[in-house]
């Protein structure tokens, strides 16, 4: 029920998607034979009779054309709502009933870079096979029925209009526009762009992007290597290996130095709290400076209740419930973002405190004590990053998607261990600069 739980801090704040390693035996990632051009990886865990399967497809929102923004999301989500299988046409009701009857979970989400299908099923062969068959039909032959499309367009439009009344959604959309600039992730769906999407667009998009050479499969759970190979082949049996070339995306350009008036956007909004976002372009996940930035951001705004931002904004001044910073490094584009919400008449103060805290950190870096504490947390806390199948899947998926070495989990703590003060300071100064930070303030800032 709503309002049932209140938590002391926001657990949901995204840290850098990291992977980790240990003093204990780390389960190895096994590389499976690629099939239809798709890479595939497995971690075997035997304790529970279940398996998690993820298919990442290089078909995220960045491939939307602005005039049809929302297309990639819809092409992914509507796979659930009708597909052609070996047994004939399955409508949305049949698909949903089959998933439920199997006791399986199947979800599709579409992010900026990739579309992701995740399946959780019991590992018993007959149940697992049926789940794989179902997913295979969706991946290879979604029907994109016109009636379903019309309904889902309407639902998406309604949800969009609702989100325009929500401060956090309006802020996020405007911030993306600022920080991504000419990169297509600056686009957000609009009423008009959703209206422009037709069934043919979905078919074409699916045909161009949902193919073996744009897919990566990650499997974690109670299956052998041979069984995992069967899963991969089952999933991709009717997926084409390749297709027509995909146009190159524009370069992701670094946020330029600009006067404040050009970097800052103020959106008048009659919410009780002002919502503030600040950030700029940063690094990709495979950047060698990933670890200095990971450790540094833990100190600045990532480390739960002990970060500098938390201390300055919340603990010392009581200005906000939630304040944070993070790097969101993707495969091809990554950003740094910080945020806070506070009642309107404190917005100016909160922004000042947040800005000066970040500026000081970029200028001076952390203290040795802070660095030691951050490394201790990240290293000692490593086992918590890989202690169940779900978390292992997150790790394998990140390693595979970002082309990281397969021993990433094994060497992770060592890479944290070697980070020193100079590296943190140098990395922050290399990638971040206050005169490049985009700022969005929503609310009544100067009330």
């Amino acid at each position, binding site marked *: 029920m709503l309002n049932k739980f209140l938590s002391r801090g926001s657990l949901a704040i995204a840290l850098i998607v990291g992977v980790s390693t240990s003093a204990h035996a780390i389960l190895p990632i096994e590389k499976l034979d690629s099939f239809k051009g798709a890479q595939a990886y497995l971690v075997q865990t035997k304790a529970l009779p279940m398996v998690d399967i993820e298919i990442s497809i290089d078909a995220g929102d960045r491939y939307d054309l602005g005039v049809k923004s929302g297309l990639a999301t819809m092409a992914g989500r509507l796979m659930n709502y009708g597909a052609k299988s070996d047994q004939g046409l399955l409508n949305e009701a049949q698909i949903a009933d089959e998933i439920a009857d199997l006791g399986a979970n199947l979800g599709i989400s579409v992010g900026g870079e990739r579309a992701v299908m995740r399946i959780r099923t019991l590992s018993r062969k007959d149940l697992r096979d049926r789940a794989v068959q179902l997913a295979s039909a969706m991946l290879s032959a979604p029907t994109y029925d016109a009636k379903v499309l019309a309904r889902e367009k309407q639902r998406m439009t309604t949800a969009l209009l609702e989100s325009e009344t929500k401060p956090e959604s309006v802020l996020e959309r405007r911030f993306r526009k600022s920080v991504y600039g000419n990169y297509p992730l600056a686009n957000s769906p609009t009423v008009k762009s959703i209206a422009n999407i037709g069934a043919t667009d979905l078919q074409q998009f699916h045909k161009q992007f949902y193919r073996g050479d744009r897919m990566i499969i990650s499997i974690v759970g109670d299956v052998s290597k041979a069984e995992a190979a069967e899963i991969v082949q089952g999933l991709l049996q009717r997926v084409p290996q390749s297709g027509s070339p995909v146009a190159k995306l524009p370069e992701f350009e670094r946020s330029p130095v600009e006067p404040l008036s050009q970097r800052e956007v103020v959106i008048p909004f009659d919410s009780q709290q002002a919502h503030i976002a600040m950030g700029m372009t940063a690094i990709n996940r495979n950047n060698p400076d990933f670890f200095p930035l990971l450790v540094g951001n833990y100190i600045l705004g990532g480390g739960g209740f*002990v970060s500098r931002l938390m201390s300055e904004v919340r603990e010392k001044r009581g200005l906000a419930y939630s304040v944070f910073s993070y790097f969101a490094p993707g495969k091809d584009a990554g950003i740094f973002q910080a945020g806070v919400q506070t009642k309107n008449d404190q917005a100016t103060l909160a922004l000042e405190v947040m800005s000066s805290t970040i500026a000081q950190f970029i200028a001076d870096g952390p203290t040795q004590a802070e660095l030691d504490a951050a490394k201790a947390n990240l290293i*000692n806390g490593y086992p918590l990053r890989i202690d169940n199948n779900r978390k292992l899947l997150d790790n394998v998926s990140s390693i595979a998607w970002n082309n990281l070495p397969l021993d990433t989990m094994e060497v992770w703590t060592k890479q944290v261990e070697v980070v020193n003060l100079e590296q943190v300071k140098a990395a922050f100064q290399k990638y971040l600069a206050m005169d490049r930070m985009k700022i969005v303030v929503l609310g009544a800032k100067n009330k």
Partner: protein
Amino acid sequence: MRSTLFSFSLYLVLSCSAALAAPEVGQANTHEFQLSNGLKLIVREDHRAPTVAHMVWYRAGSIDEVNGKTGVAHVLEHMMFKGTHKVQSGEFSRLVAAVGGRENAFTSRDYTAYFQQVEKSKLDEVMRLEADRMSNLNFDDAEFLKEIQVVMEERRLRTEDNPSSLLNEALTATAYMSSPYRYPVVGWMNDLINMKAIDARDWYRSWYKPNNATVVIAGDVDPQAILRAVEKYYGVASAKELPERKPQIEPVQKGTKRVQVKAPADSAQLAMAWKVPKLEVGRLDDNEPYALELLSAVLDGYDNARLNRTLVKQERVVNDVGVGYDMISRGPELFFISSSMAKGKTVEQAEKSIRKALKEVVDKGILESELKRVKVRILSDQIYKRDSIFGQAMEIGSTEMAGFSWKDIDVMLEKMQTITPAQVQAVAKKYLVDEGLTIAVLDPQARQSGESKQGGNRDAK
């Protein structure tokens, strides 16, 4: 609103003997102890990974609050990080962070809980800290004055600027006449404005006692070693008589209640909530709560469940619909259906469609195949849930707080599998009636927003 299966999985995690091959779980992996000061300890062994979840649950939530001091349970939760006689304010979090721990706390209507997740060799350190603040909390007034501001920001973030929360708050406060379940967990804003440090201290002195606490530890641990550590750290706390808890039985509702909320939003929302029974301690064989859980799953437990199928997909009268019911709680339960309108549809149309869907269940019952489907999902969720050590500790703790034993969980699961379509039909007929119904409507108001008025963020760039 989350689907009903979620609430199932919270409570029914253990082994199942039925159709699906369940791994051996069971009571051998779980150990219960009681210290002489009244503290209960439950240890769940799970050796899959070298980590452990350590939780302490206090049976004190907003249900124990009195008018004028609503929100105090949650405020105290915040103050628990503000120092003890030995540990300075903020030091708790720093020490937990130093050992690589993840930590937080949460307050509900029924309880307040604190937790740390650590690599197993670090358990001793966090247990020492947690036990210390059970007896030695010591914060000054200045810390309180800052933190109460943080809590008010939390209320602004979660409730004041969130129309769904405002609607839910109004619904709850209307449906319950006398039960403290009518209070929002975060508290009314005016009560927060007028709250004093002494209110939080009084709360702490009343409820934070070993005889009102359950420690739950799940993970890669040895139960006997855990018992020794818990005796060492928590054993020093002294038991104290708890304040009397009045029953505050909610009077029987005698007719439909309606409430309207005007708030900035685009779509109207409709929430309908019926007074229904919950599972009572000592009456695990009562069919009705299980039948209500299954009814909620048949209505909303999967993508093609009745309400989503008819209201969202076929009639297209609502954009989203959700059903909520928790059979396990300390206070009186509601069975509620929430929805947001599809474009151009009215709450009257949605209400009519919801009533039609319910009438269908009442008149014609449900299919054996539907019931089987939601039961299968409950069984597979028992296995999936075990992937999370933290989830297992959560499930044990929340069940215990409602007055049940973790041992009852198996019994409940077995009972759930015996429920028939006729029993599901019977609870729909008996309880989803107008006498016990409360209806809340969100009447959307335009936002005063610069950008969206210009339509700037609606156009493609």
